[in-house]
């Protein structure tokens, strides 16, 4: 293919996409058009909010000290085992340092990119799960306009990479039609697990997708066995780059030592820690970046958009329960199919399983070492479900959905200064961080 042909192809594709958008816009009712405009504003606003002022403050804040300096040491070839997590997050973070140098833009660059990519992955996952383009736009807009994702995209924390790769892994399983697709998903889960071990729990929704959707043979789930192999290989590469012994035995020792250290941390009190059951209630979100200058401060609060937060939690818990209840008695069985068809039900079960599975580690262990940001991956599953349900409701009650979306936009506009590190006085900040556990 010549470059001229490629350019012509790209132009034709662009024209086709534009024509498709124009046709769809023309076929929409006024209410749906208004909702579409709001969704577009949420996505554009969310992207701008993530990027603007990303370099501020020009120093490590909160847990950034674990990732920025460590990435720097990796590039320098200086031995460093500064935190307890697998090395991939820091290796990817080091790309930013190569591009921009060891400064605040450099050490936050890759996390920002994964934060933006999460919007795209949420779009594709929702589109594939619900087979509904409108639901996909809802998901992209909801992720874009939620402070939990915004604050983490602006911070050099590995959790935003983690959530992106977890959703990507599930997307790979959902799109898989052959064993090769499952193998790719296994590799992606291995990559996600090399950011943080908690990603290994993605195997649960992945297996559920295979068994529930039956697009591939059940025994292809054995290809998920690739994930620990990928994980070990990434550990070996990471340790080698960090100047440590990198043979399998050394890797095993480092893993054991890191796990022991993490387990030990669970015995100590931490004022920022919060139990898992408080997360869906938005009880103790953390201000992940905070800097003061004179009488004003800049906050990146991880408090999510409450217009999404509580409905998402309600749906991800309530819908599977409702499904169970309606299956319980013969006289109730007619209610569920009246609202949800088989494919929608499968999507609900996959997302609810993903939400529950990614909470499991924090339910059964971690002691006092569980923090609000551990809820980021489960919340991503909940918000995708919310998008699917919202798109469904829009067909029946478009005006109600318009009001819902408009409320979420108003909340996002009001809260944006506390998500995107605008300069605020204490009074202005406290008007947004209204509850004491929300404040730094």
């Amino acid at each position: 293919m010549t470059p001229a042909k490629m350019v012509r192809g790209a132009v034709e594709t662009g024209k086709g996409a534009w024509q498709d958008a124009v046709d769809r816009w023309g076929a929409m009712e006024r209410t749906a058009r208004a909702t579409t405009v709001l969704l577009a504003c949420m996505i554009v606003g969310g992207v701008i909010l993530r990027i603007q002022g990303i370099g501020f403050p020009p120093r490590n804040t909160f847990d950034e000290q674990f990732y920025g300096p460590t990435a720097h040491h990796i590039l320098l070839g200086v031995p460093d085992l500064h935190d307890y997590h697998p090395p991939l997050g820091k290796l990817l973070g080091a790309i930013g340092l190569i591009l921009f140098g060891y400064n605040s833009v450099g050490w936050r660059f890759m996390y920002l990119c994964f934060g933006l990519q999460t919007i795209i992955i949420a779009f594709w996952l929702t589109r594939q799960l619900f087979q509904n383009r409108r639901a996909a736009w809802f998901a992209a807009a909801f992720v874009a306009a939620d402070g939990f994702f915004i604050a983490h995209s602006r911070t050099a924390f590995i959790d935003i990479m983690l959530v992106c790769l977890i959703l990507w892994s599930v997307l790979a399983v959902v799109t898989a039609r052959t064993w090769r697709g499952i193998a790719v998903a296994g590799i992606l889960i291995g990559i996600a697990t090399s950011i943080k071990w908690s990603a290994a729990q993605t195997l649960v929704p992945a297996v559920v997708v295979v068994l529930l959707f039956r697009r591939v043979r059940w025994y292809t789930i054995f290809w998920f066995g690739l994930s620990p192999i990928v994980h070990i290989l990434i550990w070996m590469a990471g340790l080698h780059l960090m100047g440590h012994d990198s043979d399998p035995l050394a890797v095993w020792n480092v893993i054991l030592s890191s796990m022991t250290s993490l387990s030990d941390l669970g015995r100590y009190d931490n004022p920022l820690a919060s139990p898992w059951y408080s997360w869906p209630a938005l009880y103790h979100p953390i201000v992940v970046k905070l800097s003061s200058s004179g009488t004003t401060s800049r906050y990146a609060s991880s408090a999510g958009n409450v217009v999404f937060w509580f409905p998402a939690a309600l749906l991800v818990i309530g819908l599977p329960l409702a499904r169970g209840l309606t299956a319980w008695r013969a006289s109730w069985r007619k209610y569920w199919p009246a609202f949800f068809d088989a494919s929608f039900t499968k999507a609900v079960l996959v997302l609810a399983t993903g939400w529950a599975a990614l909470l499991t580690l924090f339910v059964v262990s971690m002691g006092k070492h569980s923090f609000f940001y551990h809820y980021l991956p489960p919340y991503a599953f909940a918000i995708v479900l919310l998008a699917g349900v919202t798109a469904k409701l829009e067909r029946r009650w478009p005006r109600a959905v318009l009001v819902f979306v408009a409320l979420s936009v108003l909340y996002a506009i009001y809260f944006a200064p506390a998500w995107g590190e605008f300069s605020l006085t204490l009074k202005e900040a406290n008007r947004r961080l209204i509850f004491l556990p929300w404040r730094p």
Partner: protein
Amino acid sequence: MPETHASAGESPQPQVADSPTPPEAPPAPLPSEPPVQQPDVLPPSKVTGEFNVLCYTLLSLFVVSFSVWLIFAWTGYGKRYAPHADGWYMGGTRTVEVTLVRDDAQNLTCASDLVLEGLHCGYRANQEPFDPNGTEDRLQLRPYNTADSVLFLGAGLWSSPGLSGSLPKERFTVVCNFRMVSAIKSVSLRWSPTGSFGPVKDAVPAGLLSDCVIPQ
């Protein structure tokens, strides 16, 4: 392993959510009527390659990263923040102010096997002298604390021309240019000739001190 296929009786493509039941043929819309809204449900995918979505998403990560890099590079965003890292970055140069006493030339030393652009500690990690014949000051790293309490390892302070004359008997302040060569974590420090070496907890900047002067 052979490629698997969907079993008989099941669709190889995802089911379409909420497929509308086939409606009766609608009357042709009048020209003045607004167009009928299409249900926003995807038709069954004709895509046979399961990797298409994964390719798109992988491509999108590159596009996102490249676009953000382009924006930041175009606006010089990274460089704007580089000085705010206060020179504590690889290759960066900054002014440092340290307070010393004359005997610190013998008091301050470190132990490590690392050699950074020819610079090294006075002792090896096993606390044997690095060079039995002694190390030149311009190559020997020593620990210092800046006036704002940042620990770093610097070489060349005592051999700097600005300190060639007689040094004050009391405590004095020296201002130098510090070029950071690297960072060291596997190093032990000693603050007096009779003291013992103690390891550092975090990586410390290491580099070359030059143009040192005693401000008058």
